[in-house]
């Protein structure tokens, strides 16, 4: 989301799900919503029923790709080249929205100069997508009345994920498909409260509400509210904390509800880092790979055991409500208060609604939000004041960048950090399946779900299966330069020849043992999506 923040101002989806049925051209990029976001797909299906055109950019032939007017079956990690190519076509044909570009953006000349390098021939070669398909995609999206781009982790979980989101912003801006209902850019995120967790400031460079640590004014505001001096020094990202731990320079971590020892690619390094710590506290509802490294393990409360709010992918702040008592007697917010209090900084709240009141007083985008209002209405941030109705469409007149203009970013295709070669000839793409979730610690406890999807399956194209002499249900070894796992095979036409697919929901067959250490240099997002592997029966 850092990409959208740079281009547009805020790292958040620009529009609302409820507007989807009125889209007339959907551009779905690196997202498989029928699996990963089924309810989003229901909104998109409504648009399709009403006659919307559909462009899908995905290496896999997903449900949506099968129904697309244009399927851009790009090679993994060639997103930027493809989008540059599309923009180049739009500019050559004069399909861009000149008025929008003039009035609401900056940096267009640099973009134009850059995308000229991406003529159809070049792009065909890099991406493997046919020129005709690229032109048709460019036409459909640029000429749409209401075109919306919906993108998913296929875009962000790349070593150039941030730049991928900027490339997408470039495309929307060139066509002026933003700032109106049923247009814009919807980023579909993995975990339930990714948006809220970014908004509320557990981040090394920003206070809650994306207020910069380096701004003296912001620090002063928080110092006044919290009565302590705020460090002006940008903190370390999680990856950096772990790297330093390996070097013996980082000593203590409190991990709340995360399982980096399973979900981080290159789990070897993470495990080593955790073991090097002098003191590690992990709070979670289940034992995980990560709790194995802890000095103290604290029981967490599930979402059914506490009050609070989550912010969904369209910036909608919604309540969760306590239905049963916390199993071990305390919810996380209470535990944090107790730790702070015991360390000499008294923190007392009788109910999470009081925490929200404090959030509202310090975080302008949440300024008008309170539990009382949430009982009666549904609010999307920015909601700056108590009488503000919330915001369904961002950027209707100004972008939230200095000067109010959106910024074009001239970007280069860099390719994946690891490309297939003769030893590791296949590209492993990892992702989610509908039935399971993340490290699987929740969904694997559902006997019904386990009955349906009991284990990891390697998806492989029929052509490759024949080449390797393997069939449905065979067990194979998948290995990369970093590790080796054994999994069952599922032969399917969803993966293209040369690509194979794994999820990462099962600790027994941990695909993250294989994935690469290449990371997005800006956000530190690990490259889950593409690495080189070989497949063998023995």
């Amino acid at each position, binding site marked *: 989301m850092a990409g959208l923040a740079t281009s547009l101002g805020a790292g958040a989806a620009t529009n609302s799900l409820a507007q989807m049925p009125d889209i007339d051209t959907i551009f779905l990029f690196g997202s498989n919503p029928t699996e990963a976001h089924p309810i989003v797909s229901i909104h998109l299906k409504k648009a399709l029923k009403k006659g919307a055109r559909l462009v899908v950019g995905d290496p896999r032939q997903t449900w949506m790709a099968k129904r697309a007017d244009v399927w851009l079956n790009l090679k993994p990690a060639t997103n930027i080249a493809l989008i540059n190519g599309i923009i180049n076509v739009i500019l050559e044909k004069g399909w861009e929205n000149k008025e929008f570009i003039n009035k609401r953006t900056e940096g267009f000349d640099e973009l134009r100069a850059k995308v000229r390098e991406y003529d159809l021939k070049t792009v065909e070669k890099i991406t493997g997508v046919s020129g005709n398909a690229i032109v048709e995609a460019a036409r459909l999206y640029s000429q749409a009345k209401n075109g919306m781009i919906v993108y998913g982790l296929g875009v962000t979980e790349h070593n150039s994920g941030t730049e991928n989101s900027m490339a997408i912003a470039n495309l929307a801006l060139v066509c002026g498909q933003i700032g109106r209902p049923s247009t814009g850019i919807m980023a579909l995120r993995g975990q339930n409260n990714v948006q809220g967790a970014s908004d509320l400031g557990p981040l090394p460079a920003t206070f809650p509400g994306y207020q910069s*640590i380096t701004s003296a004014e912001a620090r002063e505001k928080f110092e006044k509210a919290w009565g302590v001096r705020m460090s002006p020094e940008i903190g370390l990202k999680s990856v950096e904390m772990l790297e330093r731990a390996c070097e013996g320079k980082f000593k203590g971590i409190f991990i709340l509800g995360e399982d980096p020892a399973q979900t981080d690619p290159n789990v070897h390094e993470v495990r080593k880092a955790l073991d090097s710590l002098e003191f590690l506290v992990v709070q979670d509802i289940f034992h995980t790979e990560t709790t194995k490294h802890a000095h103290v393990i604290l029981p967490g409360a599930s979402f059914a055991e506490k009050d609070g709010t989550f912010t969904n992918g369209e910036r909608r702040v919604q309540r969760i409500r306590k239905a049963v008592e916390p199993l071990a007697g305390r919810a996380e917010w209470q535990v944090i208060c107790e730790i702070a209090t015991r360390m000499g900084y008294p923190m007392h709240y009788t109910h999470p609604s009081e925490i929200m009141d404090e959030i509202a007083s310090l975080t302008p985008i949440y300024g008008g939000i309170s539990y009382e209002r949430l009982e009666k209405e549904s609010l999307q941030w920015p909601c700056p004041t108590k009488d503000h109705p919330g915001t369904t469409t961002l950027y209707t007149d100004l972008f939230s960048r200095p000067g109010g203009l959106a910024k074009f970013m001239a970007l280069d295709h860099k390719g994946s950090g690891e490309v297939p070669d003769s030893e590791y000839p296949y590209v492993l793409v990892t992702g989610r399946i509908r039935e399971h979730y993340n490290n699987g610690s929740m969904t694997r*406890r559902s006997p019904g779900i386990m009955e349906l999807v009991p284990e990891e399956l390697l998806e492989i194209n029929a052509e490759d299966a024949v080449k390797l002499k393997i069939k449905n249900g065979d067990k194979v070894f998948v290995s990369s330069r970093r590790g080796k796992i054994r999994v069952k095979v599922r032969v399917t036409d969803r993966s293209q020849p040369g690509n194979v697919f794994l999820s990462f929901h099962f600790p027994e067959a941990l695909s993250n043992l294989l994935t690469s250490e290449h990371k997005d240099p800006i956000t530190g997002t690990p490259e889950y999506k593409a690495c080189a592997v070989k497949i063998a029966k023995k």
Partner: protein
Amino acid sequence: MSDKKLKITINGKKALCGKHETILDAAKKAGVRIPTLCYDERLEPYGGCRLCIVEVKDVPRPLPACTTRVKDGMEVFTETEEVRRLRKNVLTLLLSNHPNDCMTCEATGNCGLQSLAYEYGVDGKRYAGETWDLPIRDDNPFIIFEPNKCILCGRCVRICNDVVMAGTIELSGRGFDSVPDTAFGKPRTLENCEFCGQCVSTCPTGALVDKKGRGKGRAYEMTKVKTTCSYCGTGCNFFLNVRDGKVVKVTSDFEAPVNQGNLCIKGRYGYDFIHSSERITSPIIKKGGRYVEATWDEALDLIAKRFSEVLAQHGPSSVGAFSSARCTNEENFLVSKLVRTVFKSNNVDCCARV
């Protein structure tokens, strides 16, 4: 196109409505209840069950309220003797081919057919006609289908094909024996079904029910707690159904702004983890290489002491916290506050990228 309001009357009371509204929409807004069985806001109106019939002045035949659009000046009557008589006939017919085993039926208290039978005083004894005797389909982990209780409203088939677009079920067979079924009557598996449970959520009777909630409590015995799904970032709302301190079922919140009552397999059926026996139930401390249970006080004191020591020895640059995209906004805020006020650094990050 102007959005000029049309003026109509419903049972003599004036109502203003939009051009594209149906009589049913208008009545709803005016607070007048018209009975329905085949209607679901998520679906296109169907006009199949004949229960929503109303009389309109100067129209000879009663009209289905769900498919008839309002016209300016329309005078609608929803409770005339004639429409009540016709509705009673429809109900009598439905109950004549229905097991009428409400005593043990999962849907009791939450059944459209049962409440209308009650309201219209129809007991199912009137014509003992030919009844279905079809086997119960209990062939998958989540959904049980009792065809004998099906009233052929078509809602499950329509939601599965028109909304989910999964194409799992269709009306199969002809005439008296037609029921909604999977192709070739195969069990529901991932090959043909998404297990989203939308079909269950729309079924007005006990024909389609959630297997996991069976026998765990009647609708009126549950405390329903409205909440937001904890799986993906779509943010669907639903009701946790709680009985005796246990979440025993998830039911749809049809008013939800994001999902209008629709859910996916994880949201609707993925709640077992809440009461899993593998949950961590108490703080645990590592002592001499072994993990032992501890009280909250012991654990929290130790945490405060050790973090204070490490901070004193190595300084604020050596301690930090990872927050989670799984935790609430309030908790994320507090983690950020803890690190900034107590650890005195900005070494805080969430794995929010994933």
